[in-house]
């Protein structure tokens, strides 16, 4: 064992050892999303357990869920992931105009999804308390819908911030985090769509 266990820098170098703040924020955000994933996994597990254990899964009088509109919704939502990626790319090459255009498109696509879901909800013949299926359906789609709404609000926020001069000159953490969140929301939806609409 060396008798000098620690050496301390006497020059200014240590002052430069400010931690990589953007990197930490992004790392922390990804850890947060991993944690969120486990909440969804919990709900998915519950759904699978209930569905496999209950022979009379759907509420009385309900023969199945309509798939066409949710499928279109799915395509729109998943495509928006690509659009927000293009927005990120535009920002990276300092093309603020294209950045805003792609972001607006992505916000519109997310909003289309939410409105579509609201319309679907309004036509359904079962409610939150109609047995376990009703509960799981509204819990899953509602919880995911809240995430979509959050994603849209985040996108509006980064859109607004793009009008503050010099705001995105030094780093793009807010935009990158929003984008990752949006991809996360999309991936979760794909699993959800398969579970609820395809596996009927």
């Amino acid at each position, binding site marked *: 064992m060396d008798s000098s*266990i620690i050496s301390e820098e*006497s020059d200014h170098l240590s*002052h430069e050892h400010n931690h*990589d703040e953007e990197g930490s924020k992004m790392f*922390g955000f990804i850890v947060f999303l991993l944690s969120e994933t*486990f909440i969804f996994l919990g709900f998915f597990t*519950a759904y699978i357990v209930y569905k496999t254990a209950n022979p009379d899964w759907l509420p009385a009088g309900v023969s199945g869920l309509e798939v066409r509109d949710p499928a279109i919704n799915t395509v729109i939502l998943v495509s928006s992931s690509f659009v927000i990626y293009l927005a990120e790319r535009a920002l990276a090459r300092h093309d603020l105009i294209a950045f805003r255009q792609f972001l607006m498109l992505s916000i519109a696509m997310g909003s289309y999804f939410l409105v579509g879901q609201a319309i679907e909800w309004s036509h359904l013949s079962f409610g939150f308390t109609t047995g376990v299926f009703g509960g799981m359906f509204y819990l899953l789609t509602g919880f995911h819908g809240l995430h979509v709404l959050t994603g849209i609000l985040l996108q509006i926020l980064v859109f607004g911030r793009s009008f503050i001069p010099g705001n995105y000159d030094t780093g793009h953490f807010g935009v990158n985090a929003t984008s990752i969140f949006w991809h996360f929301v999309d991936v979760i939806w794909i699993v959800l769509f398969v579970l609820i609409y395809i596996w009927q």
Partner: protein
Amino acid sequence: MTNISVEDITGDAPQQEPRTDWKQYFSFSTDHKVIGIQYIVTAFILFLVGGIFAMIIRGELITPESDLVDRSVYNAMFTMHGTVMLFGWTFPILTGFANYFVPLMIGARDMAFPRLNAVAFWMIPIAAILLMASFFVPGGPAQAGWWSYPPVSLQNPTGNLINGEVIWLLAVAISGVSSIMGAINFVTTIVKMRAPGMTFFRTPIFVWNVFSAQIIQLFGLPVLTAGAVMLLLDLTVGTSFFDPTKGGDPVLFQHFFWFYSHPAVYVIILPVFGVFSEIFPVFARKPLFGYKIVAISSLLIAGVSGIVWVHHLYVSGTPGWMRLFFMLTTMFVSVPTGIKVFAWTATIWGGKLRFDTPMLFAFGALILFVFAGITGITLSSVPIDVHVNNTYYVVGHFHYVLYGTVTMGMFAAIYFWFPKMTGRMYYEGLGKLHFWLAFIGTNLNFFPMHPLGLQGMLRRVSSYAPEYEFWNIIASIGGFLLGVSTLPFILNMIGSWIHGEQAPKNPWRAIGLEWLVASPPPVENFEEIPVVVSEPYGYGKSEPLVAEH
């Protein structure tokens, strides 16, 4: 670049007068050290609250009849005792120590997200006040036990949105969100903010163990949250997730609950193992035996913890093959745990042992943990568990873990780091008195629960058959002794913090970055961020000749 030798670290550098600005502890501070002390003190206040509930429980059980409190009050007592001790004491105090010492130990100026850190702390008193408020709602606080199994938890006064069970769920949810925020902060801090040269295999075991514990929080807590949300919806809006009469499945809640709550035991105990690993080398003047394997075993415990929860459901209609699988995984936890116990034993073996209060507590806690581990292995075995399920044997086992190991381990941590945190020394005599009262009290209180359980006395009952009276009297005497044991502790802490002798930078001649700085450390911890050039626990030939105490 100047080298700092062990002598420099352990030397008696002139100290600044310890800060006495107590008002900062009531502020929204973002200093990890202030937040650490806020956590520790809040946790201890809640420990006293949970302790009062325990005194009422032991008071009721001193006679076979149910004569001290109402049965519903008794139900509330054991429910709130468990809840407060777990969510109010064990988690927050460990978070407190982690908050205070992780940044210092890894050579960082603060946590990665200081404001998030402060928000996470302030959620704890809010959750605690909310929980206590449930004493004043119609029907009183939750009575379904700290695990809140449906359908019992769904039977709270119906048609009333504000009832004890709803408040219980909200309070637990708030503390859960706080813990997730904390976990994100700790994991990010440990991964991203270690000082130059502080590789993972130069990081103190305490940090390794906090890291492993927080990983469990990240995957476990969200699953409990999912179950809690569903229970809350059942309770408030009338969904039927856990109502078997409407297609729901109450056993699913047990899976949700224990998927987190068993690993939660490791969340609590891993940092305590970290404390052991800090204390034993110092008081034995030897390097930690098998540093790397001890470090890795923590991650292994965290990993295996995710696949043991069904041992709480052996009697919940769980199929035989599943019971066998979870019996084996549960038993497997004893492998990395055994490695640690072996390493600590080897560290102490042949060392120049000094039994100051921190060492007494750590050593006592280790002995109690070995006993808890043995009863734990018996409980992991399906045939024994089926026999003693829901009896006092189980209660005895987990109190050896939670009081004997975790709480005693936390007292070891408090005494060990008290000089660093306050800049004052505690009174050794009072510390030793505290230890002996606590050690004898623990054994008197919790050992009798094992024969009681084997004889068939059920837990959660307020009256029992007269043949159980003898052991219950002993247990109650032990319980009251434990209650009394906190008095010298409180006296010691308050007295020392105000009037204690000024502490040197490093009273234990310990090695580690936290001992490099003044006691208490300055706001930004280090004047210059240190550059680490070797592994921790270098006790041995190079240790300083001049001891400072």
